């Protein structure tokens, strides 16, 4: 039996679906090794921040000890690397490797958010603000390589200016400043050092902007992951210290450079293609990335709506919304509560998590029309109750189960049968705990299965976490104590794991049957005892 569900969501493009399955496969391997809480692939943003802080801390040390003049800088860095290898050298290597790791992390993060489709319509902001982050991160890294003033720096300096000269901005080619030995002055070098402080600060600012529309972003990796990551960088720094090229000499051409491909990978293209093509490539890619959030297919659901008569200003929806789309405002309806929930339509993704938070979302109310404090116009709680009532009336069998799933998790439609009813919600956390109570304590069903995205992979970021906390009695609204927890099963699985889900369902139903049989036996015993 297939209980009706939320309005059908457009399915992801087959290519995107394939990429998602591939990603889930790889993340599954990482889950096996690290466990879901420490899986680095699910906290790439937090790891990005972590690498940034390492780069910043080591950078401050290097800045204090290195000499910022064009003639002194090379030797002072050589001193740090060779003589003071145990401190300055390690700092330098950490500075380099953490910067490189930042690029890898950032690129994987971009790719992952893209594949998981977490950048569209009202979620455009984080994506769009990621583009300047890309430019600033690369500019900071490239700028850093100039400061060593070795042959690599020379190559980058000349190539950068030849590249810039393509733009019709400067009259005289600025690359002319790098013609001959001694043509570069301390003034210019001070500018480079200044930039190497300013650009990373802008980057940090952009990273802050990036998270403005995300409530409770994860910006720190769990301690064990941070420690492991740092240990890896530290060992790498010892094993393969970062070294300089021979000192720069503008009288000679740099014939051969050992590039840092993470930051400088596109530099050879400036010579192999041409400056113009490289501009086209980078500006073109950035432009395409920037407009992606508005590319079809358009799926914009109507935002959540507050019903003043049913909102008592308890702030739970405000606390739970993953997108900061609910704000508490003053009321003007004369009711004796301090505030009322207000939804910012342009931030709301219609995930329904707030519906699950609202204390008014209880199906036990007898009114024929179930109106709650905050609701989704396309898929109201009233409709959910009606659908559930209908489905429950039709369920028959020995172990009747209701599965609540999520539009972004497994396709639960296939699991429907005469003794299993299924309902797909925009997010599993849309289900108010009172609904679980309702389904179980009214004796309509023997068990409930909650099927959502994998732990730490929730499409709406916080849905699985809130659901766990509500069932565990750790977050308002709590699931009441009287609800038997052994009759609720959770299955946090990727859409690519339908087999695993079916297996969990079977195990759960076997368990329900076993409970029924032992209860019957207990009953018999009691009965015989009495007689």
């Amino acid at each position, binding site marked *: 039996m297939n209980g009706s569900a939320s309005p059908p969501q457009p399915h992801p493009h087959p290519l995107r679906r394939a990429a998602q399955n591939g990603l889930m496969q790889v993340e599954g391997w990482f889950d096996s090794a*690290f466990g879901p809480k420490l899986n680095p692939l699910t906290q790439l943003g937090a790891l990005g921040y972590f690498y940034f802080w390492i780069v910043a801390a080591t950078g401050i040390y290097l800045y204090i000890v290195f000499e910022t003049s064009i003639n002194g800088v090379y030797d002072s860095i050589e001193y740090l690397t060779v003589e003071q290898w145990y401190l300055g050298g390690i700092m330098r290597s950490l500075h380099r*490797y953490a910067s490189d790791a930042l690029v890898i992390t950032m690129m994987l993060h971009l790719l992952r958010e893209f594949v998981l489709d977490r950048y569209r319509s009202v979620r455009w902001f984080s994506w769009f603000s990621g583009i300047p982050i890309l430019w600033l991160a690369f500019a900071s890294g490239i700028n850093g390589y100039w400061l060593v003033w070795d042959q690599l720096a020379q190559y980058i300096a000349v190539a950068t200016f030849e590249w810039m000269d393509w733009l019709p901005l400067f009259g005289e080619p600025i690359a002319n400043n790098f*013609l001959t030995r001694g043509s570069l002055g301390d003034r210019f070098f001070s500018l480079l050092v200044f930039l190497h402080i300013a650009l990373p600060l802008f980057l940090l600012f952009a990273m802050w902007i990036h998270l403005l529309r995300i409530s409770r972003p994860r910006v720190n990796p769990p301690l064990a992951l941070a420690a492991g990551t740092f240990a*890896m960088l530290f060992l790498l720094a010892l*094993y393969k210290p970062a070294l300089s090229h021979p000192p720069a000499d503008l009288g000679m051409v740099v*014939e051969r450079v050992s590039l840092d491909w993470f930051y400088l990978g596109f530099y050879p293209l400036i010579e192999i293609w041409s400056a113009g093509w490289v501009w086209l490539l980078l500006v073109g890619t950035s432009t395409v990335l920037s407009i992606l959030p508005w590319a079809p297919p358009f799926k914009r659901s109507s935002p959540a709506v507050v019903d003043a008569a049913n909102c008592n200003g308890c702030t739970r929806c405000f606390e739970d919304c993953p997108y900061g789309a609910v704000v508490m405002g003053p009321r003007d309806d004369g009711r004796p509560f301090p505030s009322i929930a207000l939804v910012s339509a342009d931030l709301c993704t219609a995930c329904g998590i707030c519906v699950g938070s609202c204390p008014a979302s209880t199906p036990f109310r007898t009114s024929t029309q179930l109106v709650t404090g905050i609701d989704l116009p396309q898929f109201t709680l009233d409709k959910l109750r009606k659908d559930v009532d209908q489905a429950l009336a039709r369920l028959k069998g020995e172990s009747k189960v209701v599965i609540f799933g999520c539009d972004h998790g497994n396709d639960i439609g296939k699991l429907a049968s005469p003794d299993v009813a299924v309902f797909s919600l925009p997010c599993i956390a849309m289900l108010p705990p009172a609904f679980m109570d309702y389904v179980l304590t009214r004796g309509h069903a023997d068990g409930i299965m909650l099927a959502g995205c994998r732990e730490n992979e929730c499409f709406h970021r916080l849905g699985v976490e809130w659901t766990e906390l509500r069932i565990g009695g750790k977050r308002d609204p709590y699931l009441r104590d009287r609800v038997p927890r052994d009759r609720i099963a959770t299955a946090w699985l990727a859409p690519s794991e339908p087999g695993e889900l079916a297996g969990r369902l079977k195990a759960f139903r076997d368990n329900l049957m076993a409970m029924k049989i032992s209860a019957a036996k207990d009953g018999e015993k009691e009965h015989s005892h009495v007689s």
Partner: protein
Amino acid sequence: MSRSLMPGAMKFLGQGAAYLALAVVLGYFSNSPAYIRLAPDTAVIKLSISHGGQHKGECGTRQFANIKETRTTRRALQLCPRERHSVLVEIFLDGERVFSREQPPSGLSSDGPSYFYERIAVPAGRHRLDMRMRDSGRVEGFDYETTQEVELEPARNLAIVFSTPSANFVIK
């Protein structure tokens, strides 16, 4: 393998492998493979010239009807057209032309210098360089010509500039 079933030792190995893989990628690609920009036994001549072509047209002498009624700042007697000729530069290496370009003046009113910036890879060794420039709009011949012998060791970066004061090419 089901996700919860991986035993402790395997988990440990798995994490180690993941960290090791990241370390190898970081350690390798942070400075390899090397990018080779120049074939062996090659030097580079860098042409970097900014030179204003001569003005098109002669300066004219102005006649004033009543010079006292003209503002002092407007009393210049000479009136010169600002537009310049484009500049042609040609470089010959051992008699063979390796560079030739006619560059129009910069600026919105074509009154700025013509800019040249070019990298020319040449075999290392002794060479005769002929450098020629035309900046007067003439159809044939050159306004400046310099010939010089140069010894280029491999990877040498030789700069050719044009010195306006001495009105000739200079090699650095």
